[in-house]
């Protein structure tokens, strides 16, 4: 993974000193609330229902075991002993104290971490595939490009006061595991006709109140132009994005208003001024970035033998077999797998993890996966490089710690925002809804039989839980002061990205498990062969689901 040199370290250290001074001045009354607001947001600090919330950046989801141990220490010492993995691969703390945030940032800086630009109207953490570097369907490792974007976007002087927040995601594989269509900018590494890899650039995707799938602004961009081209897009947005209404301030609204052709022309005009300038990437810089993401020293393993041994294990111990099938992912190197650690056990808020579990995962990363861990935008964690022969003992250790729920990609692996329990913007709670669904569908055989299914819950229109792109989406709405839930179907975050369609009138909280059960029963009755929920939905449309759910509700 990327290792700071003296420059990176100095920038982060100076940032800590700056924020310490800003916090001191705010507490002394020298900075007003209005002035401190953007300053604290750009350091990841929200003021929430119960306490401030601190969002710590995990650049493209990559963590070393030392960093994970530090996070465990921070949650123990400054918080209540647990942290939360967010849908943008970051880590959130729910209970820090403002006065101690500078100390937390200093602790983070000591392990090459920070909270820079994790919220506020600026360029946020760049995200990517949680299986970057190990996925079998990868065209090239996206992480060097993410790191190049991270450095360019960190403390960028021109783009710290944008109309609204700005999120970039990078995908480099056949399957899109980074939801690039739902980002302000989505970048896909893709070959041109001559077979040379470059970037396809999407712009204007986003969720929130007005969900939009990104449009192609550039079909293919030579790699060295990446930063100047991004800069041109940001310039157009910074100068022309709406600032009069924060609900219309995202770049998606600008792209819609201008039309993608006119937007592209404006970007090209800005780019003419920047193209081939000093920010054009050099071969040396790309090589330097790539040098941090070389393969770890994999053992030379006979994949066939390892696979057979594993299959025998799985047959002998079906509980292990379940976990093996659902929670491990093929690896490009024979004899290895990527392991997803489910943070979706029933009864625990999706994405929450305790300090002890973090410590354990750090140890497991050292023993089993070259000392590295990853966070995923589905709010789980990943050990990316595990030898197949070690999977059984790893699984046993995860099981003891409550981290072996075998549900990755299935209904109970749901995405959920903090909702009304923590968030002051919420219309409704989301965590109890998640729990009720998980409790209702605990029967693993039924879950597996349903096949891959994504259910996403947000507590309000801001869509932090990505409800628009869930196969089933649940959205908290306010109906005359009471908490209700709107259900949508057919969303998708993959290359066939789609925004879900609203089923009909909303439901009370206790009705939701029944509603989900009816949706699933409809699916099962209409399913052909081994269709997934989404495939059946796309074939039959929303009507049969509607009929069943609302017929029952009468």
């Amino acid at each position, binding site marked *: 993974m990327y290792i700071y*040199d003296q*420059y990176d370290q*100095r*920038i982060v250290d*100076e*940032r800590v*000193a*700056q924020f310490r*001074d*800003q916090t001191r001045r705010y507490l002394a009354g*020298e*900075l007003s609330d*209005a*002035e401190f607001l*953007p*300053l604290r947001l750009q350091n990841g600090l929200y003021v929430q229902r119960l306490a401030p919330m601190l969002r710590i950046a995990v650049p493209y989801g990559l963590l070393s075991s030392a960093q994970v141990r530090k996070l465990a220490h921070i949650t123990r010492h400054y918080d209540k002993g647990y942290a939360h993995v967010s849908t943008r691969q970051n880590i959130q703390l729910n209970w820090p104290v403002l006065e101690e945030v500078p100390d937390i940032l200093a602790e983070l800086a000591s392990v090459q971490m920070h909270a820079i630009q994790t919220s506020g*109207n600026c360029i946020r953490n760049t995200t990517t595939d949680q299986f970057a570097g190990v996925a079998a369907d990868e065209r090239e490792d996206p992480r060097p490009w993410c790191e190049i974007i991270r*450095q*360019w976007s*960190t*403390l*960028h*002087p*021109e*783009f*710290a*006061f*944008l109309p609204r927040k700005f999120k970039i995601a990078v995908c480099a594989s056949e399957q899109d595991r980074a939801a690039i269509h739902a980002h302000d900018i989505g970048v896909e590494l893709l070959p041109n006709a001559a077979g040379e890899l470059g970037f396809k650039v999407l712009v204007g995707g986003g969720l929130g109140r007005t969900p939009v799938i990104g449009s192609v602004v550039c079909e293919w961009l030579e790699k060295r132009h990446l*930063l100047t081209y991004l800069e041109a897009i940001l*310039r157009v947005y*910074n*100068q022309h994005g709406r*600032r009069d209404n924060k609900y219309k301030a995202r770049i998606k609204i600008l792209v819609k208003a201008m039309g993608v052709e006119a937007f592209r022309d404006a970007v090209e005009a800005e780019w003419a*001024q920047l193209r081939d*300038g*000093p*920010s054009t*990437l*050099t071969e*040396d*810089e790309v090589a*330097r970035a790539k040098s941090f993401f070389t393969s770890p020293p994999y053992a030379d393993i006979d994949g066939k033998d390892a696979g057979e041994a594993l299959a025998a294990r799985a047959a002998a111990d079906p509980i292990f077999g379940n976990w093996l099938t659902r929670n491990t992912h093929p690896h490009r190197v024979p004899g290895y797998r990527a392991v997803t650690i489910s943070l979706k056990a029933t009864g625990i808020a999706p994405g929450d993890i305790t300090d002890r579990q973090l410590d354990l995962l750090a140890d497991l990363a050292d023993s089993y996966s070259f000392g590295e861990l990853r966070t995923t935008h589905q709010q789980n964690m990943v050990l990316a490089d595990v030898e197949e022969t070690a999977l059984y003992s790893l699984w046993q250790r995860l099981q003891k710690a409550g981290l072996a729920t075998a549900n990755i990609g299935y209904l109970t692996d749901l995405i959920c925002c903090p909702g009304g329990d923590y968030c002051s913007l919420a219309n409704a709670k989301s965590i109890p809804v998640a729990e009720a669904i998980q409790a209702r569908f605990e029967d693993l055989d039924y879950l597996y039989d349903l096949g891959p299914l994504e259910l996403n819950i947000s507590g309000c229109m801001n869509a932090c839980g990505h409800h628009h792109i869930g196969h089933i989406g649940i959205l908290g709405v306010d109906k005359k002061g009471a908490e209700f839930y709107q259900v949508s179907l057919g969303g998708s975050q993959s290359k066939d990205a789609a925004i879900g369609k609203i089923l009909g009138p909303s439901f009370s909280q206790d009705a939701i498990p029944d509603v989900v059960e009816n949706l699933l029963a409809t699916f099962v009755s209409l399913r052909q062969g081994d269709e997934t929920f989404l495939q059946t939905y796309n074939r039959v449309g929303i009507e049969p689901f509607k009929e069943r759910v609302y017929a029952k509700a009468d």
Partner: protein
Amino acid sequence: MPKLIKQDTICSDDWLAADAASDQVAQHHFPTLPQWRAATGRTLRTVQLQPGDVVAELADALDTLDIIAVDFPVLTDGRGFSYARDLRERGYRGELRATGHFMPDQVHYLRRCGFDAFQPADDSRIEEYLRQSRVFSEQYQASVDQPLPLFRRREAQAG
């Protein structure tokens, strides 16, 4: 007289914010872009831009201008940062002055985008503006005060 920062020192001069309501340019007030446009023969040597103004209008007149002021009506409106870089990239060499309701903690970024004079609407904290102007000694991006991005300087150092 209002205080401002120029060349890292606190000083004062008698330039005041533009008066958009008037057709005439009042003495000591910066002209607005429409007032500057209306004046014949490019006789006015200063102008104050507002968010929404089209910077390109000044493109052919840059060497007739001694001061371009860019106004920040609210601290969260960051358009002026791009205007400044645009003007410098088009070759403007005169004074580029930030005016209005920006805060001390923005001076560092403003300077990197090409501003060299800072005249906050409220000058009672002017020392703080000076103190916050150089809180970072290193930066990743190319910018007006450091045209080479860090990666090129790293390379130069590595030889």
